[in-house]
């Protein structure tokens, strides 16, 4: 590796890590002001999220849905679109999977699972592709439209779950009919974490290769850099934008399918747990890099796992963790301005 590439790799590692350390220090100060011992707080964060096999599994299981929903932000971002509608794609993916799962009761489980996954991928993908199409062909701001589409998706979901698709047996918690135990996804081998983690990691790696290592991905990034230039160069801008949106939405739809097939066994209002919104945070901290999403999601999962510990041991409110998340988010975004400004990482100029 040339020293220039090594420098830039070091830079893109040191700056976010530094920002996170800064956030931890600020958070410690904040805890000190609340009369808590910061060292004890750090200890509990470590203990709650990363100290034992149990806490690691806690962390990973919280990270699993975030990996997929973050892709829904990061992939359209490659094409220059700021999509924040992952939650909508997730609930529709979950609903579609639940309907398919129930309709196929009695068929071989593997075919049911594949059909549910395809249903989730397709419905989530089409939903976000719709936001992309509105942007591409009608000039509608995709950030706003994807958010509004989420409200529509949630309203549609509630209407279906509480109306036509409601299982009459679900008296006090409206749900769709169960998909049945045979069609449920099990745990990731050797872990008490569901398959969503595996899907997420595979999806991230595949997307990283697609975006960074193929000509198609190169074209996509040119569109993201300058759509007019891309058009002049003869790139199919519309299809590229739609495909990026579709892939992102598909990831979120798959997250919904996993929630149904691995956790709930049916579609109900608990699907709307805010994973889609948390995914936005993950994608931004990962600087829209599909591969970086994995460690960032794990970090956020860990923070949320240790949030429980802080509540239980120190009687702190739930919002404490949000403060830490907010500090981390702000500092990481602010640290973006440091790229290219730190001498240490610059290639040494060769003397003439």
């Amino acid at each position, binding site marked *: 590796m040339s020293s220039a590439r090594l420098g830039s790799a070091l830079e893109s590692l040191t700056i976010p890590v530094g920002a996170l350390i800064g956030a931890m220090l600020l958070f410690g100060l904040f805890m000190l002001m609340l009369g808590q011992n910061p060292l004890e707080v750090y200890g509990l964060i470590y203990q709650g999220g990363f100290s034992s096999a149990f*806490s690691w599994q806690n962390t990973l299981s919280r990270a699993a849905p975030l990996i997929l929903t973050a892709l829904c932000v990061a992939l359209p971002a490659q094409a220059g679109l700021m999509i924040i509608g992952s939650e909508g794609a997730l609930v529709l993916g979950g609903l579609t999977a639940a309907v398919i799962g129930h309709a196929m009761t009695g068929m071989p489980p593997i075919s049911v699972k594949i059909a549910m996954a395809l249903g989730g991928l397709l419905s989530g993908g089409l939903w976000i592709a719709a936001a992309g199409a509105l942007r591409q062909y009608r000039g509608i701001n995709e950030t706003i439209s994807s958010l509004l589409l989420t409200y529509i998706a949630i309203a549609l979901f509630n209407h279906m779950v509480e109306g036509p698709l409601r299982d009459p047996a679900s008296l*006090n918690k409206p749900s769709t009919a169960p998909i049945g135990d045979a069609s449920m996804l099990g745990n990731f081998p050797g872990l008490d974490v569901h398959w969503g983690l595996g899907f997420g990691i595979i999806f991230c790696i595949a997307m990283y290769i697609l975006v960074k290592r193929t000509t198609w991905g190169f074209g996509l990034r040119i569109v993201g850099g300058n759509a007019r230039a891309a058009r002049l160069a003869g790139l199919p801008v519309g299809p590229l934008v739609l495909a990026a949106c579709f892939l992102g939405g598909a990831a979120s739809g798959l997250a919904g399918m996993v929630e149904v097939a691995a956790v709930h066994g049916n579609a109900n209002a608990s699907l709307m747990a805010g994973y889609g919104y948390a995914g936005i945070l993950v994608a931004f901290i990962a600087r829209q890099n599909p591969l970086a999403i994995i460690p960032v999601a794990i970090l956020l999962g860990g923070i949320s*796992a240790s949030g*429980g510990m802080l509540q*239980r041991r120190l009687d702190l409110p739930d919002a404490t963790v949000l403060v830490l998340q907010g500090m981390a988010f702000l500092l990481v975004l602010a640290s973006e301005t440091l790229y290219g400004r730190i001498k240490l990482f610059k290639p040494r100029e060769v003397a003439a």
Partner: protein
Amino acid sequence: MTARPTDLSRRNMIKGAAAVAATGAMGGWIPAFAQSKLTVGVIYVGPRDDYGYNQAQAQAAAALKKMPGIKVVEQEKVPETTDVQKTMGSMIEQDGVTLLFPTSFGYFDPHMLRMAEKYPKVRFAHCGGMWTSGKHPANTGSYFGYIDECQYLNGIVAGYASKTKKIGFIAAKPIPQVLRNCNAFLMGARSVDPKITCQLIVTGDWSLPVKEAEATNSMVDQGIDVITSHVDSPKVLIETAEKRGIFSCGYHANQSALAPKGYLTGAEWNWLTVYEQHVKDAIAGAPFKNFVRGGLKEGFVKMSPYGKAVPDAAKKKADATKAAMMKGDYVIFKGPLKDNTGKEVIPAGKSLVQTDPVLEQMNYLVEGVVGKV
């Protein structure tokens, strides 16, 4: 992963053996030691200070904390996803909790059932009516209360307080528990004046403060002058009612501080009764009570103290009805009873006592309720 539970129970057994040896050596200290061993975990779906559902549970948890030898760990705003499974697991593995109160309705299936299978020695007491004998594990159970009794008393007081003869009910979802409360509220009011009608507005979800405030405002504009609700946190709608100068009846917890002028009374949970029972059983090693229900008589629910605006006649009638309920011979739902489409839902001569499971499938609104299921 199948190795884990056995692993755990083995570890617990060693721990238990060590504890027995230690207490044996200490002789007379056994009861005190046993008492200090109980750690209780309480999990809330929303904030603990929501003036509503979660606060009612948190008040019981706070009272438990004051009891000697009991440690309480709490976690709030835990969503009904794998998060709550991991939270239960953390409480058990990291804090040594052996009695859990996962208080949100949606925690039961599949989350609590899954964890109960994994940790068969831990007691899981869930708030709601889901537990079914033979279907669910023996270390799980449900507790719930007949709070429609309090909504009926709310209705009596509202019936006296209302001048326009129009009262309102703001509901989260049209599910049996909620419909039962709405019906009881109007029936209480109609026991005072049969001309009273009740407008029902369904917001669609358990916590939608903006919609709840809008619903309250639209009710005031329609001339409604007493409201109550069944949402997770009635805070905003009680405040809105106070601002608009109408009366309100509380739900879940005491909200009188939010509306010093207009708060008439309220239907409150008294979960400490349930918590104490489970704690006593756990300490004594008595079998876990899987199915726990009760109303005013059993001390599961209670009324907020009357507000300043409540007339004496209302107090008299409400107190008399309450006394009859405390004796256990008062029936709210009895025939002939028609729904608001004119269909007879309970034939003449038939009485449904509070414990009747038919009431838990209620899918109608009684005559006089303006609204649709």
